[in-house]
């Protein structure tokens, strides 16, 4: 592997370009991220003189960029994916000094969200490498900025999917930072200072207090971490679409990270809950452990038929393509089908059921900060946490493979506090 020093020497050699270069070569990269990412490895291809000049200019520009370790004053350590293979490995980087509005905390646990899997493999096409995932982050405050009002050292806190927004648009002023067009994601996004954000598979976190939630002492940190994404993702639509009324009949499609949280929240809100799943073997779990009232196997036509027009709302957590018509059929008139899983391909929408029953198909994406705090407090009050499997950070790549096969009940949570240092 070529070190940074060797790379610079080669570049300096290139600076004195011979008229017809034959032997000195540099690999031409398009894209700032790849230049940073591949800075240490050079393969040779022959370029024209003009191309080499362009390449030199380009790389010189990139040399001005600092390495992740040097960007900020605080030393940080985490696990990152380096490329689209998605394989995670130890990664040294840095975080900013605690600004006047910032809260710094030692990360104790981080939940593994299916989005982390999509992002490390660049499945949505917007990943920047190295990528430190993790947006279900919990820990204990170590330092607060001079203008921080809501948090003190020693508080148990969490950070979810967002670390910034514009604060001034209609959505931000209505506590809907999650719908702000300039919302900044917790990882693989550009922060206000132009640096890339790194997520919670890391030892420390610095975040603006606006995007930090307080975790009540009564909640166990490890099982609370998944609330910060999975929890709010289902809590928010239950409220917005009015499905939080006692006695309502709510269907939950898919029994995974999101689905199992939806069952718990809906039950706590007083709903009758039916789990709709393709896996008959999840019935026992759904009813006995999660207290769902009933279970429908979605491929069983008779069961679906019998439940026609019985539900006030359905929360659909499945991101794989599936037909919507049977689900709209399960709804009563004025019923609502809410999609929180995000498949890539469009679904087919039959218009008749929507019109004849004045039904609605809507979406939802996490929740605003105020609502996220409300959700955490609600969970504390009702004793709601996620069903988790705690793992050491070295297990993370295996966990990702198992998550891909939905082989987890129902969220992996990385024991950052106890295992991250030992892997340096």
């Amino acid at each position, binding site marked *: 592997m070529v070190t940074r020093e060797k790379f610079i020497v080669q570049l300096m050699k290139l600076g004195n370009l011979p008229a017809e270069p034959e032997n000195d070569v540099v690999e031409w990269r398009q894209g700032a991220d790849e230049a940073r990412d591949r800075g240490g490895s050079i393969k040779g291809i022959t370029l024209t003189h003009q191309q080499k000049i362009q390449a030199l200019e380009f790389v010189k520009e990139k040399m001005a960029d600092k390495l992740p370790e040097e960007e900020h004053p605080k030393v940080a350590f985490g696990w990152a994916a380096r490329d689209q293979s998605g394989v995670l490995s130890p990664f040294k980087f840095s975080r900013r000094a605690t600004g006047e509005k910032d809260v710094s905390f030692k990360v104790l646990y981080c939940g593994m969200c299916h989005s982390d899997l999509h992002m490390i493999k660049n499945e949505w096409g917007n990943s920047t490498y190295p990528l430190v995932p993790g947006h279900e982050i919990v820990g204990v405050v170590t330092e607060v900025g001079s203008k921080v009002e809501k948090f003190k050292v020693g508080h148990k806190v969490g950070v979810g999917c967002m670390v910034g927004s514009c604060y001034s648009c*209609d*959505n931000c002023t209505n506590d*809907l930072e999650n*719908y702000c*067009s300039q919302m900044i994601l917790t990882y693989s996004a550009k922060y206000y200072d132009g640096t890339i954000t790194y997520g919670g598979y890391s030892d420390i976190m610095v975040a603006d207090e606006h995007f930090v939630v307080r975790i009540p002492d009564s909640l166990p940190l490890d099982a609370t971490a998944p609330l910060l994404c999975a929890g709010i993702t289902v809590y928010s639509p239950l409220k*917005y679409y009015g499905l939080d009324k006692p006695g309502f009949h709510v269907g939950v499609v898919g029994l995974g990270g999101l689905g199992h949280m939806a069952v718990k929240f809906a039950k706590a809100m007083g709903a009758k809950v039916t789990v709709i799943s393709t896996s008959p073997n999840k019935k026992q779990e759904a009813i006995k452990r999660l207290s769902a009232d009933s279970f429908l196997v979605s491929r069983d036509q008779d069961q679906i038929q019998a439940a026609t027009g019985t539900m006030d709302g359905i929360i659909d957590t499945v991101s794989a393509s599936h037909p*919507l*018509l049977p689900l709209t059929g399960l709804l009563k*008139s*004025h019923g*609502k089908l809410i*999609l*929180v*899983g*995000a*498949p*890539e391909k*469009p*679904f*087919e*929408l*039959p*218009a*008749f*059921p*929507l*019109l*004849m*029953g*004045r*039904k*609605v*198909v*809507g*979406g*939802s*994406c996490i929740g605003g900060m105020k609502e996220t705090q409300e959700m955490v407090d609600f969970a504390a009050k009702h004793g709601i946490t996620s069903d988790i499997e705690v793992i050491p950070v070295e297990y993370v790549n295996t966990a990702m493979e198992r998550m891909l096969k939905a082989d987890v009940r129902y969220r992996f949570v990385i024991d950052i506090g106890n295992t991250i240092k030992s892997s340096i």
Partner: protein
Amino acid sequence: MAKSSEAQHPQKVFGWAAKDTSGILSPFHFSRRENGDEDVSIKILYCGVCHSDLHSCRNEWGNAHYPLVPGHEIVGTVTKIGSNVKKFKVGDRVGVGVMVGSCKSCEYCKQDLENYCPKHILTYNSIDNDGTRTYGGYADMIVVDQNFVVHFPDGLPSDAGAPLLCAGITVYSPMKYYGMTEPGKHLGIVGLGGLGHVAVRIAKAFGLKVTVISSSPRKESEAINRLGADAFLVSNDAGKMKGAIGTMDFIIDTVSAVHALAPLLSLLKANGKLITLGLPNKPLELPIFPLVLGRKLVGGSDIGGMKETQEMLDFCAKHNITADVEVIRMDEINTAMDRLAKSDVKYRFVIDVGSSLSQL
């Protein structure tokens, strides 16, 4: 042996009916029930020609029973009232819309949402409480349960007001249900036909900013100068559509042809709502990402309840809202249907039943 439509009931009626899937209408003698205690008998003056009439006559929805007398935008005068009828008196000008009955006992009926009652009875091509077929307003008279008759406000002309009984309520109801009545909000209306043009007027009366979205550039002048829309977007002009991304709070989609929803969803702001009123015969393609990332929703709506229909008529009378109509004689109906199939009407045909039917 079933009785012929002429002999089923005691009152003789004359109208025009489609006799087969060609949808061609021709004179038809039939009968209606005696005016019961709850009933109102109405001499029909005008009947609007709704696109649903066309779909039904030609069996495009696959459920037509012939002979089929269409017409559910009916305005007339009361000629007889049953002993329990208190709301109407002989001589009143009244309207009948898309429904003539419901179960009256389910949760929907109890909430004035008869249109969502699973047993609601349509004005035509449906089965009435006595098991006989319902016949619509392309006829000289109709007998209707008083709960399905509305007062026609004094300020509303019978001809230009008739289409409100279907087109009007079909756009008014979702505007209220989905919260589109806050002045200053921005509504996009897709399609400028019978539904669309009434929607523009009602929306302006609610104080909304209105953009008409249409595939026909030639409708722009109409939309802005005559109907009062604030802006006009040509839906296949990619550049203009791009410029309007994320600007609308709501969209009412009146188009029944199969069309792409993705460009319409992108016009909505976050938390925006797309309400579809047209009934295409194939499912539409719904991209999910915009729904999830922007908390947008797609909803439907189907006419409105009786209470709301009366409210809508009163609202339109107050704001001088009527439809733009082309009045025709009954015997011109087949030509009108052909023109309607080509969208060649600004924007509703209305049959002058009162004057033209009796002469035939």
